[in-house]
């Protein structure tokens, strides 16, 4: 099938005789979709109503001449990319120059010559095809970029992702008070033995999805998962005036949710609040992470507690005891800290 058959053409000429002549020439070239306008105004109306691939435009017409129609087309954001071929007198170099200046793609001199008409239309169709292709490639690149950006915001907290996109790096920062939460599954190793990998991962997926829902509800930030451990923060990228209470509430909800997901799941939650440093490490695989004593203590608390409870240091407990129920677990040897009084929170008051 000739290329021309797919292109829709609008021919604007006030001479009915030219319509017949052009129609015959275009028919012979395989251009089946050809519309005709008798004057400039009609042409502009037709352009508003339907899309054309190429406009053939006579210069000399009553009412609106070819220059005026061309200017209107080029001033219209929706149609300015439609290539326009002017129909001119053969020696009319000044008009041709003016049309090119106004944005015409090409010109056809009268009397029409079939070979030249074929060449001009062919080149125009090809150029439009290339331009459309380029446009669609650009669109594709934009879509891909959007996807990549979205992926980045999924992997990283949105404020961190924006900084990374804008500047290409993320400045590490220190925070005065952030609530940290660690949650791990009791007896996970035992659970794994005797189950297929698919079953284990599907179970973890369901549990962690539920945990993500809970952290989102508390306006917290999931930092990462490490094996069966889920790590989240409060007051890091979203402001939180009581980060410790937030992580305690979140921890209690997680502990309650785990058995609902699967009767086999029981979790231990450890929390702590205090200063820490956050940033991105790695250059090829970005990982937003947190460091500091606060993080270590919260992790230790998770290891020290009982299933179904939220464990914290006694100092932390004093901050939230007015709103929580709990009991002393007594002194515990915490690695790197010596003996510390540890309290487990079992519910809210």
């Amino acid at each position, binding site marked *: 099938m000739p290329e021309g058959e797919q292109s829709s053409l609008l021919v604007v000429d006030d001479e009915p005789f030219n319509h017949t002549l052009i129609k015959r020439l275009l028919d012979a070239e395989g251009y089946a979709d050809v519309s005709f306008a008798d004057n400039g105004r009609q042409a502009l109306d037709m352009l508003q109503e339907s899309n054309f691939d190429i406009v053939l435009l006579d210069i000399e017409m009553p009412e609106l001449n070819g220059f005026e129609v061309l200017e209107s087309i080029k001033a219209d954001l929706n149609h300015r990319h439609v290539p326009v071929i002017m129909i001119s007198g*053969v*020696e009319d*170099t000044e008009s041709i*120059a003016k049309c*090119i*200046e106004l944005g015409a*793609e*090409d*010109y056809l001199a009268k009397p029409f010559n079939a070979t030249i008409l074929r060449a001009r239309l062919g080149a125009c169709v090809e150029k439009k095809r290339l331009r459309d292709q380029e446009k669609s490639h650009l669109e594709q690149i934009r879509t891909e970029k959007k996807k990549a950006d979205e992926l980045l915001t999924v992997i990283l907290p949105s404020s961190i992702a924006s900084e990374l996109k804008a500047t290409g790096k993320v400045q590490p920062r220190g925070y005065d008070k952030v609530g940290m939460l660690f949650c791990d599954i009791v007896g996970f190793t035992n659970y794994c033995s005797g189950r297929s990998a698919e079953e284990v991962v599907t179970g973890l997926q369901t549990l962690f999805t539920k945990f993500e829902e809970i952290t989102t509800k508390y306006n917290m930030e999931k930092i990462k998962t490490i094996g069966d451990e889920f790590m989240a923060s409060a007051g890091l990228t979203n402001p939180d005036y009581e980060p410790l209470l937030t992580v305690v509430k979140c921890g209690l909800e997680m502990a309650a949710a785990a058995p609902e997901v699967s009767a086999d799941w029981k979790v231990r939650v450890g929390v702590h609040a205090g200063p820490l440093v956050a940033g991105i490490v790695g250059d090829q695989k970005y990982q937003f992470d947190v460091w500091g004593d606060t993080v270590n203590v919260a992790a230790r608390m998770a290891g020290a507690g009982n299933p179904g409870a939220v464990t914290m240091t006694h100092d932390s407990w004093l901050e939230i005891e007015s709103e929580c129920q709990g009991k002393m677990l007594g002194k515990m040897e915490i690695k790197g800290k010596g003996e510390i009084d540890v309290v487990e929170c079992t519910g809210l008051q």
Partner: protein
Amino acid sequence: MSSNVRAYNKASLFLLLLFTFVFSAGNLHADYKWNLPPGLPEPVIPQSNPMSVAKVELGRHLFYYKKLSLNGKMACATCHRQARAFTDGRVTAQGTTGEIHPRNTPSLGNVAYQPVLTWAQPKLTRLEEQLLIPLLGTQPVELGMAGKKKIIVRRLKRDPAYHSMFQAAFGDNKAVSLENMAKALASFQRRLITANSAYDREDLSLAAERGAKLFFGERLNCFRCHPAPFFTDSLTHVGLGFKEIAFHNTGLYNLAGKGAYPPKNTGLHAHTGQPEDMGRFRTPSLRNVAVTAPYMHDGSVPTLAQVIDIYAAGGRGPGRSNPHKSVFVSGFNLTSIEKSDLIAFLTSLTDETFLTDPRFSDPFTNPLK
């Protein structure tokens, strides 16, 4: 040994300081930002007149200042109109007293890249000197300020706005002087860079693309004297080993069959007296050529189509057999369609933004915000 090392260190420290001083003094305005389109080299700027934003803005105010003419009727901009790429559309220029200039007003677009100025002045290389000719010259009278240098300075000093602009540009109380006026005007003209045409944007219409093939082809040989990207073979810029200075006889005249040009317009010959320099003029750039009609050094060709006809014929009338004619003006065959294509290409060298850029416009009607 150690004292030698110390002496060497002292010497190198001294040299370093000296270099730092010379370098920083010579590049007082080295941080001037041209913001040139990619690929365009920087123009050569005289060390004695580095570019600065304040100087360019003062220069613009001087360029449009009618009090720089004897009767207050003309400014530089009267003959160098922005909408026409800083030409006047006249066959030849007319001075403030009505005197007719023998030459067509040349465009100022990319004048900073011209190694020699005006149509045929091999020794005139600095805008600071050239602009004094229209200002103070008497043959012909242009702005008509011959012998009135003090009046110019007095007029500028009397205007507080100019006084403060001079101070901003040159930084002292005695800044208002003819020399500084020339420096500012030169800086403004060097800023008139034009390189944003459809050709530069690689956005040629199909007709212009065919014209480009003709232009850069060996059948027509246009590009021999009008090579891209400046479209002239008379060129200088930073990084160019030596200035390319070119004057050509294009076969427009052949008076009495002896190769002569009309007496007031003999071109390079008027300066060198060499017979072979008869009728040789500097190659003008073809950028914005569609808006700078009429053409040639004497404005004797009204349209681009006629210019092409002349080159197709290998010169004009008897000029075709001018013995000093350039070898590249040897004629060619061109169909009427090809001629239109070539004109479509030349039209695509028009830089619309240059013709309307507010930074180059009349500050009295279009002040910058």
